[in-house]
């Protein structure tokens, strides 16, 4: 359940960002996070953690949207890029195992969708 530790960071960042906004009565509707598949995050667990960690807080009725990014590797020998499927870290062209991961390690908050009171 590393989703809880990760989610605690998500909630902390969201709170900080919301506090920085100059608008009044800001309310978070939705937050989009991008998660590379190498992190082995179970989306349902992350959402469950989000529900628990935001309960009775300002973020309590906001939605967590999770965008999963596939693992993509580039072969260090022939330069071929392909998606890693079934944890088979082997080049799809020359079958070399010398791969550099170029996608799939993402772990960031992309945006916050908020509503606020107009002056």
């Amino acid at each position, binding site marked *: *359940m*590393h989703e809880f*530790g*990760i989610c605690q*960071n*998500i909630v*902390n*960042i969201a709170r900080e*960002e919301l506090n920085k*906004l100059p608008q009044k009565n800001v*309310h978070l*509707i939705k937050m989009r*996070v991008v998660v590379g598949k*190498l*992190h*082995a995050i179970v989306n349902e667990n992350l959402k469950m953690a989000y529900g628990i960690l935001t309960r009775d807080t300002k973020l309590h009725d906001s939605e967590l949207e999770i965008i999963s990014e596939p693992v993509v590797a580039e072969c260090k020998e022939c330069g071929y890029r392909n998606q890693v499927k079934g*944890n*088979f*870290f*082997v080049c799809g062209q020359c079958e*070399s*195992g*010398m791969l550099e*991961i170029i996608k799939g390690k993402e*772990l*960031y*908050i*992309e*945006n*916050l*969708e*908020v*509503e*606020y*009171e*107009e002056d």
Partner: protein
Amino acid sequence: MKKTEIKIYKEILKAEGEWAAKTRECLKNHNIVMLNLIGSPGCGKTALLEVLLPRMAQRVRCAVLEGDVETARDAERLGHLGIPVSQIITQGTCHLNAQIVNKAVLELPLDKLDLVFVENVGNLICPTEFDIGETSKLAVLSVTEGEDKPLKYPFLFREARAAVLTKIDLLPYLPFERAKCLDYIAQVNSELPVFEISALASQGLTALADWIYVLETE
């Protein structure tokens, strides 16, 4: 009410990463290598340290940070070795975090050390996820587990600089298929060196120690 979208692109583990960077910088300044041992509960991490430390302490100055959810039993097991051992109790958390490790590292006699072993909490997922400022991660896997662990936990075997296969003295008594396990490791990370050891029978320790001696700080 007015709606708007705010793009932020914030790394989720940025705060952790900053603590890890501080530790890494500090270790670099003292020319200390720090190894982060990651493996399941019972895979033999402490047993490995029990046999590796007396051997290595003759050549390099070592210390250990012991991470456990509860109890100081592992630190007690290593207490007689005469090297600095500190126990970090995470109180339920399934991994060591960068801030706690930073504090523990700063409390070590850094001017008198070359090598710090961190025994992370027994778990293959969470400790891989959280950078603690180590020089390298070491994946520890025992022959009493399934040989397909590398396929189930590929992130660890991708992030680690080496894998240690422990308890190999038990191979004759187990259905564990060694060749298959090595194939799975290679499938996930063909560049990963694998050290096959037995703590009980003192097998394979020289090769592992020699590999550690030449590691350099980042």
